[in-house]
């Protein structure tokens, strides 16, 4: 047992003791003189013409810009912005209470509150195409639609380890203890698969393909569940090593990331359903904590977070490169975003705030902070809850719901912002009962 104040004092004392070895000595006058001399050495600012090659590139770029502008003006260039307008979204915010119930607030994509209802759920309810689903104990799911309430019991002893399809229309329930994996395609079917030792699963849109990793004595077997159970690949992996999966957006490949024999990050891309595999990895020093990988929306690139950096794998060229991004802060979740215009940009999200990074630019743009967030399926907009009264930790929270569009430069293009009613249930500050949100186009 540690008293908080005593513990913090001990921490400060230990650091003070440790920092006896810090290089505190400095010749301040010499340092200042050196910096001043360097500054003077640069001389006055002089404008210089760029080299001939650079001048040619600049002229070509300006010409291309003029041509593209003309095409857009003439309506001949495909403008991606209508996709945003065409996405009719619903946004759901669920505010949990300690009793397991919670209040659901349903907004439309413009940020207008549609209705409010009390809903009990183990974890966040999920939006469906025609309603919403709440998860109860013992694998019982409750589906509410305009047609009524439907309760379905699943054939699992404990519904844990939910792995959702990106479109929210299917979920795989992985029973870590007894092994069965149940694939639920909402409104279609629920299929249990007897897979003892399942440790991870990924689900494609609609649940048409599910890939499950099953721990074996000397590695992990990858099973493809698509109505049948097919062993597609036997993956050698250290038994104690963690493992995560990422399914390509079109379901044609699955990437497995774990540690290689020497602790280095190891990525294996497995084609489905034939099981052809390529094992690769960035050239980095082993032993740094790594995080799950994710595919770019077009399936061309894998992003691997390793340590504080991000490494990009070109699946076509089988090459790795350091993106140059550096995560200054703690990150819980990362996602790809598609900027509204221009070339595909890589953007990642941090935990407890939202930072957008562009490929090749180490400095992020902070869009929102202090709350959970969700990305719309078009990957162009972000919904966020923002606590605007952080001082009242045990009082009622005021929460904003907003949607944010991302420009090619990672800028926040703005969006509607709504405010939850002031009478929503109080939320404790222990970090366990955080509001959640999700969406459905």
């Amino acid at each position, binding site marked *: 047992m*540690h008293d*908080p104040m005593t*513990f*913090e004092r*001990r*921490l*400060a*004392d*230990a*650091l*003070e*003791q*440790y*920092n*006896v*070895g*810090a*290089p*505190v000595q*400095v010749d*301040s*006058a010499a*340092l*200042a*003189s050196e*910096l*001043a001399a*360097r*500054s003077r050495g640069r001389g006055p600012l002089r404008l210089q013409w760029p080299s001939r090659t650079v001048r040619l590139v600049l002229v070509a770029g300006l010409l291309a810009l003029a041509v593209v502008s003309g095409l857009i003006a003439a309506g001949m260039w495909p403008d991606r912005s209508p996709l945003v307008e065409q996405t009719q979204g619903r946004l759901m915010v669920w505010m949990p209470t300690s009793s397991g119930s919670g209040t659901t607030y349903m907004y439309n994509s413009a940020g207008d509150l549609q209705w409010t209802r009390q809903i009990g759920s183990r974890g966040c309810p999920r939006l469906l195409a025609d309603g919403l689903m709440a998860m109860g104990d013992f694998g019982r799911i409750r589906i509410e639609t305009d047609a009524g309430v439907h309760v379905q019991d699943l054939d699992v002893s404990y519904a844990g380890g939910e792995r959702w399809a990106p479109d929210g229309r299917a979920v795989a329930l992985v029973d870590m203890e007894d092994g069965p994996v149940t694939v639920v395609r909402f409104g279609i079917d629920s299929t249990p698969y007897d897979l003892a030792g399942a440790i991870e699963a990924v689900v494609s849109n609609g649940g048409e393909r599910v890939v499950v990793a099953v721990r074996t004595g000397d590695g992990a077997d990858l099973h493809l569940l698509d109505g049948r159970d097919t062993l597609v690949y036997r993956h050698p992996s250290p038994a104690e090593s963690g493992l995560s999966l990422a399914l390509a957006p079109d379901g044609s490949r699955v990437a497995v990331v774990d540690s290689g024999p020497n602790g280095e990050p190891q990525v294996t891309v497995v084609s489905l359903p034939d099981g052809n595999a390529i094992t690769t990895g960035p050239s*980095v*020093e082993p*032993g*740094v*904590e790594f995080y799950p990988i994710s595919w770019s929306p077009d399936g061309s690139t894998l992003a691997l977070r390793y*340590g*504080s*950096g991000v490494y990009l794998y070109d699946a076509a060229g089988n090459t790795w490169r350091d993106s140059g991004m*550096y*995560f*200054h*802060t*703690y990150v819980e979740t990362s996602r790809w975003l598609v900027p509204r215009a221009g070339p595909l940009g890589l953007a990642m999200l941090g935990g*407890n*705030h939202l*930072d957008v990074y562009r490929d090749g630019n180490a400095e*992020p743009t*902070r869009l929102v*902070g*202090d709350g959970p967030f969700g990305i719309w399926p078009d990957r162009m907009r972000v919904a966020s809850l923002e*606590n605007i009264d*952080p001082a009242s930790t045990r009082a009622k929270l005021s929460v904003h719901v907003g949607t944010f569009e991302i420009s090619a430069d990672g800028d926040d293009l703005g969006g509607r912002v709504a405010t939850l009613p002031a009478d929503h249930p109080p939320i404790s500050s222990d*970090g366990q009962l955080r509001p959640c949100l999700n969406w459905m186009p």
Partner: protein
Amino acid sequence: MSELAIGDHAATNATVRLAATGDSAAFARLVDLHHAAMARVAYTVCGDAELARDATQQAWEIAWRRLAGLRDHGQVRSWLVAIAANEARQAVRRRRSRPIVDLSERLDIAPGADPADRIGTVDLARALAHLNPDDRALIALRYVAGLDATEIASGLRMSPSGVRSRLARLLQRLRTELDHA
């Protein structure tokens, strides 16, 4: 606020203002005042004296270039130690061959400590050694430089509540590790 404090504040502002114009004598006074704190923060993050020295040197170079852009001269200390922390994190990242530093070896030979206290300190240091550079920077800015959550947030581009919650998680993690030490 006492007259002395007001006088200190005014003197600091004057020094920063002069240094921002390129006055090397004023800049040297800033170095005298803040170098030790910056070096300790960098050392906590790097765990290596040479690396910390390079990071602190780099931090001063940045400070020299950007001092004119510092709006609140009263925040110069937190601004400087945050630069040092960031440079130290970058330095560790560039030299990935040493991602984890065993602090305990150094503490075992630290002179003058009460043996009874030192045992706890060694355990604490071992727990600290498992943190990544980002987390160490947070710990260093809070418990070595003594910055508050708002100052840390400004330096690390985080929200104050984010700093508080992350610090709470870090302390809880350290406590848990110490309970099992």
